[in-house]
């Protein structure tokens, strides 16, 4: 014969189990209720798709982009998303990003491949927005800036050995802190006019002038469309200056008249 105490314990355990099941069922619904609009697609060209839940829909100009949407561009794709706080995200071709969070002054973008240019709007008098771009190996955190983040996989670069994944951050305005995702405390501040690279699991490189360290950027140093090959700009001409004397042979000595009587 089971005791009354044992029956009470079993009843409570079963109740708790039912409650847990109910919470688990409601959780996605709660999450969906919290995921609101992140912004609007203001420019769309080429092949651009939005993955929303289990559905994949083509992106069109003017359509709403929601938090949690995955934006995927094809080889000719390009999209600009105007966020609700007037910040913008410009995604280049062959790129893939997810807007993980956009609420209460906090924006978090997950760049899984390709390049995104972020303009972080800062309202005068308001608190600095908390804006982060995450890649599989780095975090770029900005406070009111304009910067590019590029994540490349499967390419080798000279002097980096076997490392084949790189995050390049190029800053055009403001200041961005760049860190390896596994070592957030080891970040470096990259000022405007400079760029930095996180290679594999390494800490970010020291900031170097834009276009000179081999980092890739949206548009590239020569203004090419899309993610430019990581070339190196040299602002110093390789043509020798004109100071090298270019004199050919000196003029011949003047011919002198030998004078009378000399044959």
């Amino acid at each position, binding site marked *: 014969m089971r005791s009354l105490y044992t029956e009470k314990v079993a009843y409570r355990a079963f109740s708790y189990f039912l409650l847990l099941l109910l919470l688990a069922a409601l959780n996605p619904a709660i999450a969906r209720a919290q995921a609101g609009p992140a912004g609007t697609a203001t420019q769309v060209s080429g092949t651009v798709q939005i993955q929303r839940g289990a559905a994949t829909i083509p992106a069109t100009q003017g359509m709403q982009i929601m938090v949690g949407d995955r934006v995927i561009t094809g080889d000719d794709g390009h999209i600009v998303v105007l966020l609700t706080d007037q910040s913008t995200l410009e995604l280049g071709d062959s790129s893939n990003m997810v807007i993980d969070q956009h609420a209460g002054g906090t924006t978090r973008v997950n760049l899984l491949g390709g390049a995104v240019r972020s303009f972080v709007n800062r309202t005068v008098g308001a608190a600095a927005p908390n804006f982060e771009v995450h890649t599989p190996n780095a975090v770029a955190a900005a406070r009111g800036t304009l910067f590019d983040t590029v994540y490349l996989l499967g390419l080798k670069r000279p002097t980096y050995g076997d490392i084949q994944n790189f995050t390049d951050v190029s800053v055009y305005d403001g200041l961005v802190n760049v860190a390896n995702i596994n070592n957030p405390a080891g970040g470096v501040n990259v000022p405007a006019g*400079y760029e930095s690279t996180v290679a594999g699991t390494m800490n970010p490189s020291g900031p170097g*002038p834009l276009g000179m360290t081999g980092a890739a950027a949206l548009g590239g140093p020569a203004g090419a469309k899309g993610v430019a*090959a990581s070339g190196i700009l040299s*602002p*110093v*001409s390789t043509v020798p200056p004109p*100071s090298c004397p*270019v004199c050919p042979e000196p003029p011949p000595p003047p011919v002198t008249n030998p004078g009378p009587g000399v044959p």
Partner: protein
Amino acid sequence: MHKRLLYLTCALASLACVALVQTNASAAGFFDDVYPGFFTIQRPGTLNLTGFSGGFISDKYGTIQEGFQFEQSVTPYIGAVGRITGYQLWEGEGFDNPLNPGTGHQARLNFARFQGGVDLNLYPGTHLFILGGRDAGDSHASTIEGDFSTWLFLHSLHPVNFSFSTNHNYQNSVTSTSMDLQAIVLSTRRWIFLAGGGGAFYVGGFIPDLQGQGGPDLGVYYRPWNIGVSAQAGYGAAHQYGQLSLYKQLTIFE
């Protein structure tokens, strides 16, 4: 005894083979680390075009040069380079502005220099051009030239560029070298500002002793237009001098 010697010899030979293989492997690893894909054709290829002009004025002579240079990539580390330069040269004491010569001063020599050669990308940010060429016009010299440029401390706020160019003229047997050391003082979204110093020295042929000149220089580069300007002033064998270079770069992805 012989067996022990044989075993010892075989052991030493094996050890030597292992060491050799390891050395080759590490050398190959180092080579692959610094030059991955050395023999791979660069795709997309790039064609760099540089239009340039400049002037040099001193108490002894003045020069104006203008032309363009192209660099065509073949592999990520080797490319072809060609350059065409036009020169106008004036000589004289107490010299006038060669761009507006006064009475009695006129362009003494006008000639063009055609050069071609190989571009070696030795290391990220380091280039070596080896060019041969020939002049046409008032000069008929054959020349050989080496141009070297390297960027140091690229991952810093103030990278430094060291460059030199050495040219030997087979007609007048003069060997001339120009050198320059510049640092990036400031980089912004649109501008790069440089400061440093440089000069030139020359010897051979009708120049009996080593002569040269040097002084500080300033440079500025405008990124949106890929245009740069560099100015240098100083003193030397040609007495006081001033020098100005302008260049426009264009990169075409093929």
